């Protein structure tokens, strides 16, 4: 009987573990093998670090482009995540005040979440482009004479359009996480702090923020990983150079020269490692601060 009890959870978990082990596990194994040059479809069965060397060690055009892409992706993901986290904290605190967020507000946030990233990026490009709605409003007000006078907000070199997209799309996501945490906490903490004479800022800094920090950090990690690996939004709102590492990897992978798949896979493996390092770092940070 005891043995059976111990066996049951694994029986219940078996289908999920099997599916993920087969699909995710083999994708990792195949990916790493290909990045090491094990390309059976062109009859190559040797294992080398040649692809990694070509990408990482310059000076060569490939290495130069890889490092600038990595920097660009890190910049866009980090900036978007930080701005979205700060924005969500502001929205959750200011918009709800001491009342609970109403069902209408929560419903609207979900509605925003349901709009696919691809569609949101398209809508933003129609809004922010130099001949977009915002530029037309500026022209009607007499602020600009020609579309070229309008600042380049989408398809710009610094990823401003991409960051704007992610910040506006991730604030609702993180806000929902924060509202869920705030709702599950007793409201009396803030009331007590207020009675003890804490100012609004002190209540935010010493009561609300410590309560939501673990959840906010976990949500921010998901957001960072999502943005770092995403392809669609930079494809719509970005430029060809600098482009994100995801776009670079895909470009190598789709190259008719099958030899180049090794480079594409090597970039993917490095991307996955970056995300795992950031996730572990965030987890460690959270553990250390909670103690």
């Amino acid at each position, binding site marked *: 009987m005891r043995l059976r009890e111990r066996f049951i959870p*694994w029986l219940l978990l078996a289908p999920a573990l099997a599916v993920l082990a087969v699909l995710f596990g083999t994708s990792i194994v195949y990916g790493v093998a290909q990045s090491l040059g094990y390309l059976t479809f062109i009859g190559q069965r040797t294992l080398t670090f040649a692809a990694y060397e070509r990408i990482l060690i310059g000076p060569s055009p490939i290495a130069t482009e890889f490092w600038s892409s990595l920097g660009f992706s890190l910049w866009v993901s980090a900036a978007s995540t930080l701005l979205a986290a700060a924005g969500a904290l502001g929205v959750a605190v200011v918009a709800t005040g001491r009342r609970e967020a109403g069902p209408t507000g929560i419903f609207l946030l979900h509605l925003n979440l349901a709009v696919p990233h691809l569609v949101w990026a398209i809508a933003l490009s129609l809004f922010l482009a130099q001949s977009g709605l915002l530029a037309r409003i500026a022209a009607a007000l007499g602020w600009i004479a020609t579309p070229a006078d309008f600042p380049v907000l989408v398809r710009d070199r610094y990823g401003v359009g991409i960051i704007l997209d992610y910040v506006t799309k991730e604030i609702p996501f993180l806000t929902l996480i924060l509202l*869920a945490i705030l709702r599950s906490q007793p409201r009396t903490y803030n009331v007590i702090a207020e009675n003890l004479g804490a100012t609004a800022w002190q209540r935010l800094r010493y009561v609300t923020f410590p309560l939501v920090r673990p959840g906010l950090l976990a949500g921010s990690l*998901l957001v960072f990983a999502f943005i770092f690996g995403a392809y669609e939004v930079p494809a719509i709102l970005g430029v060809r150079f600098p482009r994100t590492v995801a776009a670079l990897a895909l470009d190598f992978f789709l190259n008719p020269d099958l030899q180049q798949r090794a480079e594409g896979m090597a970039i993917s493996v490095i991307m996955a490692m970056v995300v795992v390092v950031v996730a572990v770092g965030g987890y460690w940070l959270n553990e250390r601060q909670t103690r």
Partner: protein
Amino acid sequence: MNVKRANWVVPVRVAFVAGLYGLLLLPIGILFLHAFTARWFYPQLVPQEWSFDPFWRQLTLPGNQEALITSIQVAVATSLVSLCIAYPAARALGTRAFAGRNWVSLLFFIPTVVPPVAMGMGLNILFLRVGLASTFLGVVLVHLVPVLPYTIFTLTSLFARYELQYEYQAVVLGAGRWQIFWMVTLPLVLPGVVVATLFAFLVSWSQYLLTLFIGGGRVLTLPMLLFSAVSGGNPTTIAILSLMFMGPPLVVIAATARYLTAEGGQAQRSQY
């Protein structure tokens, strides 16, 4: 009890909330403006000519309709399969304490942060080899990788708050396995299950790269058409396809709003 506040606090908060609502709705409005115009050139603030024709033309185009149907089929199949696999797993994780539980959670977490580019490239070769590339089944299977972890997490947080005592009560009263499931468990977990299925649907719905890698241009979903419309560059067509792509998720969200506002706050783990 009520603390006196400066009298600017309320109007500022109202303006802030109104601005946020505007931000949430503005892009949808822009798509509608573009979708129903025949001519709208810079620097006109409003379209010079309104027309319903382009919208109707795109909506009745056989290619677009097929893509819409394929998208719905893939997302529905993925979310149902995912639900069947995730339900027992989540029940184990949420209601039982066993050795290795944290490791299993970590294992399920990893696919949610690994970039789809990396996953798609690896699976591309495997699926080509076993003949699943360019098939409907192959696309559903590859969608399971990002969808399944989210479904498991959503349901796990549901079961973590689940009260097993109700089931024991039913056992004591002589109920059988199926009776317990239909009359006790299901009514209790239904809101959470609906929300988990909804999230699964939405995550699958917005997949582009994984469908591209495995579908190989044979299994055409709406995001594929949308991407080619973007490279085509006609704003009206782009806006109409965007609305077609955005419509079903909004309908599904609206239909399940009552479960979401009750349950979604607790279960919010995914974005799409």
